[in-house]
């Protein structure tokens, strides 16, 4: 009887510990966007259209020491003529409070579909880049960035 009650308590304790541990793991991520949020944003833009790989060169550092200032360069292969050019480029991240980072609109006058900026990353996460061509084709590229100090500022 005594042994049984001890057993039960230990089991309960373990269960509580497991729940607490899980909660601690999940808690900091609660307010963050995740892959689903990024997928939802993409769905909002393009529905369930298919994405091809290639054509996009997404240049981000493998390890970012400071998440407040992470350089990001997108370079899409295209002749950039009136009949064949890159219309739009969207960049998302799956571990920030909000999934969107930047959306570019290019025109044939650009001559080259390439742009650089600097972004904030709250934690180690994936950066997803989409490119929409003038002929309606869609391309996607993904890169992961390890962030040493998060850029969420609180």
């Amino acid at each position, binding site marked *: 009887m005594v042994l049984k009650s001890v057993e039960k308590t230990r089991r309960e304790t373990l269960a509580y510990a497991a729940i607490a541990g899980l909660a601690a793991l999940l808690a900091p991520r609660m307010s963050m966007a995740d892959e689903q949020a990024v997928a939802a944003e993409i769905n909002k833009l393009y529905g369930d259209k298919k994405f091809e790989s290639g054509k996009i060169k997404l240049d981000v550092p493998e390890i970012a020491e400071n998440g*407040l*200032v*992470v350089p990001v360069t997108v370079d899409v292969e295209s002749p*950039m003529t009136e009949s064949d050019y890159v219309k739009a480029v969207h960049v998302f*991240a799956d571990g*920030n*409070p*909000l999934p*969107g*980072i*930047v*959306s*570019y*609109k*290019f*025109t044939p*006058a*650009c*001559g*080259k579909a*390439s*742009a*650089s*900026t*600097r*972004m*904030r*990353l709250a934690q180690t996460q994936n950066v997803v880049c989409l490119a929409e061509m003038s002929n309606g084709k869609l391309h996607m590229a993904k890169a992961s960035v390890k962030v040493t100090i998060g*850029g*969420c*500022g*609180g």
Partner: protein
Amino acid sequence: MATTPTPRVRLPAQAKPGELIEIKTLISHEMESGQRKDAGGKVVPRKIINKFTAAFNGKVVFEADWNPAISANPYQSFFYKAVDSGEFTFTWKDDDGSDYVAKNKLTVA
């Protein structure tokens, strides 16, 4: 940090016809994301530049929609294929409705 944002633009003053030039822009702005809390635990309201537009002789050539994930003092570079001489107008649109404008001449010869 309530100073007026100052845009800075770097591009070549002269280019050959058909030459690809890189335009680099920078503007001083805190880009308050609306995610941060102040010392009293109150959320600092969002105030960012949400749109950057580059136009050449009045025609828009490049646009960027910025989200709160863009760093403070936002930098943006892009390319332009020089054809004719003219003037660039760069516009940054703030959440509070104000516009910051910079103009740069380009001579093509």
